[in-house]
């Protein structure tokens, strides 16, 4: 932050910003207080090397971790009307949008991509928490509709990865209307007999949790992720209740029957690939990645794509992937 940040309009900020130097070389783990060097943290997909705490992962990195060889193709999302409410609080909504756009280099809080997972073509819609808290307005709704339509078109499974505080207030009732809208979108995938997976990441709350995010055929959650409808602070202040230990965390939802499994970040890709394969290929497995053990009679293609840099190809012996730590 310097005088330029405050003075120069958001669009120009992007030009004058020095991008590659991280603000802090050291990050303190919010769970255990351990100081982690930024390179180590990045290498470990933003997991605390000390306690395993899952910190938020930038969305591009998330996508790279999921797809085979880290390769995927993003799709252009349809434009939506800009600032339909002409909303203004202490700042104009259009300015907040521009800020978020220049900060993230993205148009809104969702990215839709497709590529192969275990050789199977898959569509992923992932929220970008860095963009206005991943809040859902018509643009995000449009992204989910586009993702669902693409999945139907490609006869591909759909994976949605929310990371969102909820509906975007600045688009008012139109944000609320994205709840039914996204519900219809994911229903289209289900109606086609295609699997719809949700990977709940930190945080998934409000209008996002109370619509498509809770409607997955199979629902995974990252360890420690905050997932719920009402915010913990809202509950505390309005109801004056003391919140139980671990309230609204992924493990709490698992215990209360709200998610199928809590899966550590490094096991997410394997778990999803296995689920996709189980549901999409009920007669015979068709996984081409990871490399099948020699002589394994599973009909996998002969030449699997080589593993690329930056992804962790799962060990060959675990073609079916390790068990999720918390079970189903």
């Amino acid at each position: 932050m310097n005088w330029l940040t405050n003075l120069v309009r958001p669009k120009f900020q992007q030009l004058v910003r020095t991008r590659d130097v991280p603000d802090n070389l050291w990050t303190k783990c919010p769970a255990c207080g351990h100081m982690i060097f930024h390179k180590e943290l990045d290498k470990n997909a933003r997991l605390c090397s000390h306690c395993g705490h899952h910190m938020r992962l930038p969305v591009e990195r998330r996508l790279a971790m999921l797809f085979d060889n880290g390769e995927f193709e993003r799709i252009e999302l349809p434009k939506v009307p800009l600032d339909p409410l002409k909303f203004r609080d202490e700042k104009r909504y259009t300015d907040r949008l521009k800020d978020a756009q220049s900060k993230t280099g993205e148009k809104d809080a969702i990215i839709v991509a497709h590529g192969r997972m275990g050789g199977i073509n898959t569509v992923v819609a992932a929220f970008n928490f860095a963009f206005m808290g991943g809040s859902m307005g018509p643009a995000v709704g449009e992204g989910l509709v586009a993702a669902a339509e693409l999945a139907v078109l490609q006869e591909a499974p759909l994976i949605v990865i929310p990371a969102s505080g909820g509906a975007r207030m600045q688009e008012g009732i139109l944000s609320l209307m994205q709840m039914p809208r996204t519900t219809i979108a994911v229903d289209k995938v289900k109606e086609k007999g295609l699997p719809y997976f949700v990977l709940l990441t930190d945080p998934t709350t409000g209008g996002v949790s109370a619509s498509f995010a809770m409607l997955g055929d199979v629902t995974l959650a990252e360890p420690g992720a905050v997932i719920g409808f009402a915010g913990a602070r809202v509950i505390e202040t309005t109801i004056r209740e003391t919140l139980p230990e671990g309230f609204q965390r992924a493990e709490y939802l698992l215990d209360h029957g709200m998610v199928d499994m809590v899966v550590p970040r490094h096991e997410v890709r394997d778990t999803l690939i296995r689920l996709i394969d189980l549901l999409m290929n009920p007669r015979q497995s068709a996984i081409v990645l990871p490399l099948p053990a020699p002589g394994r009679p599973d009909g996998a293609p002969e030449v699997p794509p080589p593993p690329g840099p930056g992804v962790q190809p799962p060990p060959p012996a675990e073609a079916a992937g390790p068990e999720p730590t918390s079970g189903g």
Partner: protein
Amino acid sequence: MQFLEFEKPIAELEGKIEELRHLHDGNGVKVRDGDEAAGEIDLADDIARLREKVQKQLKATYAKLTPWQKTQVARHPLRPHGLDVIHGLVEDFTPLAGDRAFAEDRAIVGGLGRFNGRTVMVMAHEKGRDTDTRLTHNFGMAKPEGYRKAIRLMRLAERFGVPVITLVDTAGAYPGVEAEERGQAEAIARAIETCLDIRVPLVTAVIGEGGSGGAIALAAANRVLMFEHAIYSVISPEGCAGILWRSGEAAQQAAEALRLTAQDLLKLGVIDAVVPEPLGGAHRTPDEAIANLGLAIEENLKPLLDREAGVLRAERRDKFLAMGRVAA
């Protein structure tokens, strides 16, 4: 009558009328001999003139209510609530209870009955009128079991080809620990999904407060009507002010910015019709308001009755799929 802050001038006039009436009815003007008749006439004239003034004042005030004033009217303690409307419009109302999984949630009342001679399934948020009933109905804030009951009743209606009418009046879904642990988000998501799926006509009227997820859970309807002074919003003005202005005192500005009035929502294409309220708001003459609502529901329900089940469902889905896509 309970008066709102902005109704003070009206309250003063009403007070004067009350005083004069007291004089008129009592012995106050009859003390002078032989002047009895004249005195009475004079007072009656005064009262009539004051009444006219009240009407004028009401008309002037209610013609240009600000969004914040409407918020207060929508929450007026004497405003007709869900059960008032049901009792006013539905004959042979037969309440049905329970979600068959956990509990009966009286924040949402519902059951079978006859509306203009036809069997309907009617459901409503009920806020309660005094301390006892407010506690019984949990101030109209439903828990997961409330939404799950709504789902059950919608499916029951569908099985018998019975149209569904929902009446929305809630500050929002209940923000509490037990609601979260039983899956508030999932329950709302499923309720929305069910609204969008049933193959019978679904007509919704927002009669007071349409509070966010708790409202949309019952309101993804073929036709959405709204009382003239009702509100419908993604977040309460107070909640929005607390987050975006960092002060609950900015609720007035937030109410303006959110575009939560029936008139704004009609322009945004989120609702289909505005139901007129009697002069001075529904709380002044509830019977008249309820009668107006009855006419509007009939007018909107009738064309849906002959429509084929698949078409009804498809139209509803298409409508919500387009929300936020087209500029208002």
